[in-house]
C-alpha cells in the first residue's frame, strides 16, 4: 500500500520546509498552506515519493479504524486519499492540513514535541473523517460500507417492531461540529442515537446527510420490507390511543393508494395477511359484543 514511498531521498523543498518549521513552529500552518498552493497537480505524487522516514510505517489508517470507538469508519483507499481532487477545500477546514495528510498517508516525518504531535493527530482524525464522508458515497466506499452494514457493524434498530434491522450511520448536517452521528433504520425510516457513548461523540459530518440514502438507491435490493404493524398501547387489554393508530393507518392506506395509482410497488410486507387479520379481529370483536349482550 504505502511502502512505495520508502527509501527515496527527501526533496530539497521538504528539507527546507522541515528546517523552517523547526525554527519557527508557528509558521507551520502557513508553510503547509504555501505548499498546497504551489504544489499544484503533482503535489500528491511529490508527497508520496518524498518522505523517507521508515520509522513511520505504522499504517495510521489501520490503527485508526481498528481502534475502539471508530468501528463505524471504513478504510479509505490510498489512491483516493492521495488524489488532490478528492480533498478539495479541506485544507481550510483542517488545522496543520499537510501534516495531518502526511500522517494519514503514513508519510509523516516531522519531528515535534508531544503537544504538537497531539494537535496533528487530532487534525488527522478530523481530516480522515471529512474525507470519509466523501469516500463512502463513491462506488468502492459504498461497497465497503455495505459489507459493514451486512455485518451489523453499526448496530441494530432498537425499535422492537423492526426486528433487529441493521442500521446505517448518518449525520444531520454536512458541516463539521454541528451534530454527532445518528443511526438510520431503513425499516422504520427513522433516526436513533447510538447506544454507546463512545459512538455518540463522533461527528455526524464524517458520514454526511446523503450517504445512507444513496446506498439504498445503489443497492435497492438491500431495502428491507416495510412493516405495517405498530405497537398498540393497552390498558387491561383495552387499546389506548386507538383513534391515533387508526388515523395513522388511514394515512398509510392513502400512501398505498397513491403508489397504486402511480403503479409503484409499495414495498410493504404481508399486505394480504394484514387485511385478513383485521377482518378476523372485527369478527371476534363482534362476537364478543353479542356474547356480552346475552349475558346481561
Amino acid at each position, binding site marked *: 500500500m504505502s511502502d512505495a514511498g520508502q527509501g527515496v531521498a527527501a526533496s530539497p523543498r521538504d528539507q527546507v520546509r522541515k528546517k523552517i518549521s523547526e525554527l519557527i513552529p508557528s509558521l507551520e500552518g502557513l508553510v503547509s498552506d504555501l505548499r498546497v498552493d504551489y504544489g499544484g497537480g503533482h503535489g500528491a505524487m511529490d508527497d508520496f515519493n518524498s518522505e523517507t522516514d521508515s520509522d513511520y510505517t505504522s499504517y495510521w489508517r489501520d490503527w485508526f479504524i481498528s481502534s475502539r470507538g471508530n468501528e463505524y469508519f471504513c478504510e479509505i483507499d490510498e489512491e483516493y486519499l492521495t488524489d488532490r481532487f478528492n480533498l478539495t477545500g479541506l485544507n481550510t477546514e483542517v488545522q496543520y492540513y499537510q501534516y495531518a495528510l502526511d500522517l494519514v498517508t503514513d508519510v509523516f516525518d516531522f519531528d515535534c514535541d508531544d503537544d504538537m504531535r497531539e494537535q496533528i493527530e487530532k487534525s488527522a482524525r478530523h481530516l480522515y473523517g471529512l474525507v470519509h464522508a466523501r469516500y463512502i458515497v463513491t462506488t468502492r466506499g459504498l461497497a465497503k460500507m455495505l459489507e459493514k452494514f451486512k455485518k451489523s457493524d453499526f448496530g441494530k434498530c*432498537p*425499535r*422492537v*417492531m423492526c426486528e433487529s434491522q441493521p442500521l446505517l450511520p448518518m449525520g*444531520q*448536517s454536512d*458541516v463539521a461540529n*454541528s*451534530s454527532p452521528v*445518528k443511526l*438510520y433504520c431503513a*425499516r*422504520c*425510516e*427513522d*433516526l*436513533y*442515537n447510538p*447506544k454507546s457513548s463512545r459512538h455518540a461523540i463522533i461527528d*455526524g459530518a464524517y458520514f454526511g*446527510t*446523503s450517504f445512507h*440514502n*444513496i446506498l*439504498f*438507491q445503489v443497492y*435497492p435490493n438491500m*431495502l428491507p420490507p*416495510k412493516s405495517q404493524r*405498530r*405497537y398498540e*398501547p*393497552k*390498558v*387491561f*387489554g383495552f387499546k*389506548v*390511543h386507538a*383513534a*391515533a393508530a*387508526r*388515523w*395513522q*393507518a388511514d*394515512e*398509510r392506506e392513502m*400512501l398505498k393508494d*397513491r*403508489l397504486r395509482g*402511480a403503479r*409503484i*410497488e*409499495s*414495498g*410493504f410486507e404481508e399486505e394480504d395477511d394484514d387485511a385478513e387479520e383485521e377482518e378476523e379481529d372485527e369478527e371476534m370483536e363482534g362476537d364478543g359484543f353479542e356474547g356480552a349482550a346475552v349475558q346481561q
Partner: protein
Amino acid sequence: MSSSSQVTESWISSFCGLLGHEYFAEVSEDFIEDDFNLTGLQSQVPMYKEALEMILDVEPEDDDDEEEEEEEDEEDDEILGDERPTPYRRASDRRHLRIASDLSVIESSAELLYGLIHQRYITSRPGIQQMAEKYELQHFGTCPRVHCNSTKVLPVGLNDSPGHETVKLFCPSCLDVYTPPNSRFQTVDGAFFGTTFPSLFFMTFTDLDIGSGIRNNPTTAAQALIQIQAENAKNSNTTPANVTSINGIAPHNLAPGIGAGNIYEPRIYGFRVSERAKSGPRMKWLRMKPADVTELDETRRYWENPPDDADRPHDDDLNMVDVAEGKSVDSRKKISARRKRTNGSGNGGGSPMDTNGVGAAG
C-alpha cells in the same frame, strides 16, 4: 442470594439490587401479604409456598417442608392469616433446613413469583407511585429515537404471561416500544412489568409534561435547524387553542415526539427523496399525527356527518375533547356544536361516564 449472605438484607431488596434488576420496584410486604393480590398465582408458580416464604424472608415454625407441599392451600392461608407475633424465623436460619438443589429451584420460583406480583403491584396505587419516583430519576433510561429528544421511557411487557418476551421500553413521545440498550435487561421477563403499566402510568399522571425535553432550547446549529422546523410545525398545528384534553390527555402530551417537524425526511445532497422512488419514504405514517388533535375525536366526527339520525347518542356521550371555557372560540362548526352542548348540559348535568368534563367545568 440473600439467603446465602450474612447481612440481614431482605430478599426483596437484594433481588432488586441485582445487576439487571434496576427496573424493579420493591414490592411492599403488605401488598404481598394480602392474599387477594396473589389470586391465581399459585397455579402459575411451582413450589409456590416456599417461594412466597423466601420472598417474605419467613419460615413457619413447622420444619418439614416436603410434606407441606401437598397441603399448600391450607398452610398458605394459615401463614398469611396468622397474626401470632413470632411464627417466623429469618432467612439465615432457614438456609440450614433445606438442601441446596431444592434451594435453587425455590430461588427461581421466588423470582418468578416476585415478578408476577410485581406486575400487579406497579399498577396499584403505592406501586405506581414508587415507579413514578424511579421514572423521575430516569431509572428506565430515555428513548433512543432522535426526534424524541431523550424522553424518559417506562418498562413494558409485550405479554402478560411469563416466558414470552423480555422487557421492553415504552416511549410516550412516539408511542412505540424499544429494546433496552443494555443486554443485561435481556434476561428480564417482560411479563414482570406487564402490558398495562406504562399506559396506565401516563393516564394516572396526566400532569407530567412528556415533551418537556423536546421543547428545550437548542444548543447547536443542527438543533437550531430542527427547532426552526419544529416552529414551522407548530404553525401547522391547528388544534383549537381552547382544547384542553383529548381522551383525557392534554394535546401537548399526546405523542409530542411525532407529527410534522418530527418526521425524518430522507434527502440526497439536499434534495428530498420522492415517495415514488423505490427507496423512497414509506413509513412516515408511523411518525405522523393530525395537526388538529380533535380529528381523533372519531365518535363526534362520525355523528356530525349524518346529523339527523335518530340513533344519534346524547351529546355527552360524544365527549372526547375538553375545551377550556372563556378562551378564544373557534368558529368551526364542530366547536360551536360542542359549545352548545356544554352550555346546554351545564356543569353538573353530564353523563355519569363523563370524566373529561370534571376538570373543565370547575
